[in-house]
């Protein structure tokens, strides 16, 4: 209930206001019709009164004779409010030829309302030459004359009607204003608020630099949304900083490892090789007697130094493989061969292939190393988690970008489960492999996605399931080449 308080409030106010509006509308109509019947009965009364009085006070002969019959009767009726002011109405006695026989004071001007010799069955509305509206009724008098009673619509009940009308109209106006206000409140406040909430729900904090929440006429909402927008930007920048930090860390780590490997190679390894050569030379000059102690010592020394040399070489390999200097194609072939050898006979043999369809000759070592590490990690995932027996790495040009993909025929990968997952979370949730790949992708300034051929329906997809890791990245610029 409380969740929808605003809407509830608005609904209640709207409902009651609408009710008020319709009640007022009805009151207005009712008042109009009440006034109408009041006026009709009033004018009828006036006419009836006069004709009855005329019949009572004198014969028709007298009236004809004197020409002014019923002056007295007019006087008797002069207390009637309709006859107080000439504007309010009047009574005319008209001959059937349309001549005024007698009239209440100032009532002569009402003659145009006389429409002919027929009496009216019921009062009617009529308009005089000045546009004034009257209730009129015509009755026949004895002696062939007619009586016309007219009451002005405006004058008689004007003050009363005016107040009523104003009151009702103002009630209706207020209701209408409240309704419009409610609509605007809904349209300008409730709808944008809801919209902002919806957008906020979908904001990927730290993923979007600028979030546009609200543009509209309300300064309050504008202020609120700009605060939130600033928060989003800050969180994005913080995330970027964190990412950059991780990337720098990876880069620094690779650089240190490379440096160490080079020093080991140029120093310790070369010294070991030189020592082996010297021992071999010494063996040549030693007595050829195979059992001499000198020869045995030299053999042992050679063996020991050879072992040391082998160990140093494998340290170098582990730290930073020297063959990345041979270029991407060779480096990927090398790692493919090594992986195939490493998995040989462990479970089942794994067929690992490489296809380079894009120009990769000028790749800087950093890029080569990143792709090698990605391939290594992806292949190891494919074998360990997917039980893959076939792995294919490919590099292709795709528009202005390069696409590196590693595809396997393993048991697939629930790509949906990871869709949109922050790869930082993957690291903390134990998916180090994917997190490692993601770090290299970042070094390449690329984007990655994982497609399980379970849901891709690609024509290239092999029967069975399988999984494809795809990385799109910009080709290294000439400045990056070493």
């Amino acid at each position, binding site marked *: 209930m409380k969740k929808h308080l605003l809407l509830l409030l608005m609904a209640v106010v709207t409902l009651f206001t609408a009710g008020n509006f319709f009640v007022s509308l009805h009151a207005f109509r009712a008042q109009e019709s009440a006034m109408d019947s009041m006026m009709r009965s009033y004018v009828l009364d006036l006419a009836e009164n006069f004709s009855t009085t005329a019949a009572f006070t004198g014969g028709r002969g007298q009236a004809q004779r004197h020409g002014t019959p019923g002056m007295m009767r007019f006087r008797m009726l002069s207390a009637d409010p309709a006859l107080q002011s000439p504007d309010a109405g009047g009574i005319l006695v008209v001959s059937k030829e349309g001549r005024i026989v007698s009239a209440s004071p100032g009532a002569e001007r009402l003659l145009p309302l006389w429409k002919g010799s027929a009496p009216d069955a019921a009062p009617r509305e009529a308009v005089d030459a000045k546009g004034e509206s009257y209730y009129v009724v015509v009755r026949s008098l004895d002696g062939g004359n007619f009586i016309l009673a007219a009451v002005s619509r405006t004058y008689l009940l004007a003050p009363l009607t005016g107040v009523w009308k104003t009151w009702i109209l103002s009630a209706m106006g207020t209701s209408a204003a409240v309704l419009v206000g409610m609509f605007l409140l809904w349209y300008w406040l409730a709808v944008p608020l809801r919209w902002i909430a919806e957008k906020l729900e979908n904001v990927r904090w730290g993923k979007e630099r600028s979030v546009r929440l609200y543009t509209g006429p309300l300064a309050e909402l504008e202020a609120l949304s700009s605060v939130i927008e600033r928060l989003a930007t800050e969180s994005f920048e913080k995330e970027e900083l964190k990412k950059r930090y991780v990337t720098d860390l990876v880069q620094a780590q690779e650089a240190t490892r490379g440096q160490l490997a080079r020093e080991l190679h140029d120093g310790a390894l070369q010294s070991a*090789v030189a020592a082996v050569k*010297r021992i071999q030379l010494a063996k040549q000059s030693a007595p050829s007697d195979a059992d001499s102690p000198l020869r045995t010592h030299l053999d042992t020394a050679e063996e020991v130094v050879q072992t040391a040399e082998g160990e140093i*070489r494998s340290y170098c390999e582990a730290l930073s493989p020297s063959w990345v200097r041979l270029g991407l194609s*060779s480096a990927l*072939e090398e790692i493919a061969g090594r992986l195939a050898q490493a998995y040989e006979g462990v479970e089942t043999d794994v067929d690992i292939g490489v296809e380079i*369809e894009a120009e990769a*000759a000028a790749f800087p070592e950093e890029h080569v190393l990143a792709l090698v590490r990605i391939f290594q990690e992806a292949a190891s995932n494919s074998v360990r988690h997917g039980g893959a027996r076939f792995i294919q790495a490919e590099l292709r040009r795709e528009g202005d970008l390069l696409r590196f993909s590693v595809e396997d025929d393993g048991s697939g990968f629930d790509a949906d489960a990871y869709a949109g997952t922050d790869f930082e979370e993957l690291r903390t949730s134990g998916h180090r492999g994917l997190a490692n790949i993601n770090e290299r992708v970042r070094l390449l300034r690329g984007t990655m996605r994982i497609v399980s051929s379970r849901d891709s329906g690609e024509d290239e997809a092999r029967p069975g399931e399988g999984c494809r890791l795809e990385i799109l990245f910009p080709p290294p610029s000439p400045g990056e080449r070493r």
Partner: protein
Amino acid sequence: MLRILLADDHPLTRSGLAAWLEEEEGVELVGQAADGESAWTMLLETHPDLALLDIEMPNGSGIEIAERIMKRKLPTNVLMLTAYSAQQYVMASVRAGAKGFILKSAPFDRLRQAIEDTSRGIFYLDPSVSLVSDEAPAEELSEREKEVLILTAQGLPSSETARLLSITKRTVAAHLTSIYAKLGAKNKTEAILLALKRGIVLLDQLRYIDGEGTRQ
């Protein structure tokens, strides 16, 4: 007399090798270089029969020197002498026109063997470069399989190989699978190296210039 040029940037290794070469019969050490540039200059001056080149050297690697020799069509054979045992170093050397590949720490009798094989144009590959099934008897490759293997060895992607041979990519893959089975190889590189070792494919067929295969 076999005239030999030695290039290695490490002074102790170089002097050790030089001492041995000077003692050996049938060979003559015509020069010692400590980097790529001086090796190239000496090579042009002395026209040795064989160049023993270290891969990793300042001012030009052994692979670059081998490529230059191949491009200039100089009569010098190249034997790579290196501390690296990665298969791709062998492949890079072979594509650059080297006739042999030996590790620096190999005993002298093996070096002697390598020098002799290489100068006679026989491909020498150090046994320490690990190959899966060196001794497995190899079945004959068909002509088409040889073509596929050679183009693949030149570094062409399978789509390009397929285009040049007017077959589909799938057929190329099928040929490769059959080649691996026949040679007992695990992958492309091993298949090529085994084919070279056994003389199924000749070094000259794998010439590799400017990153693109040159086809006769």
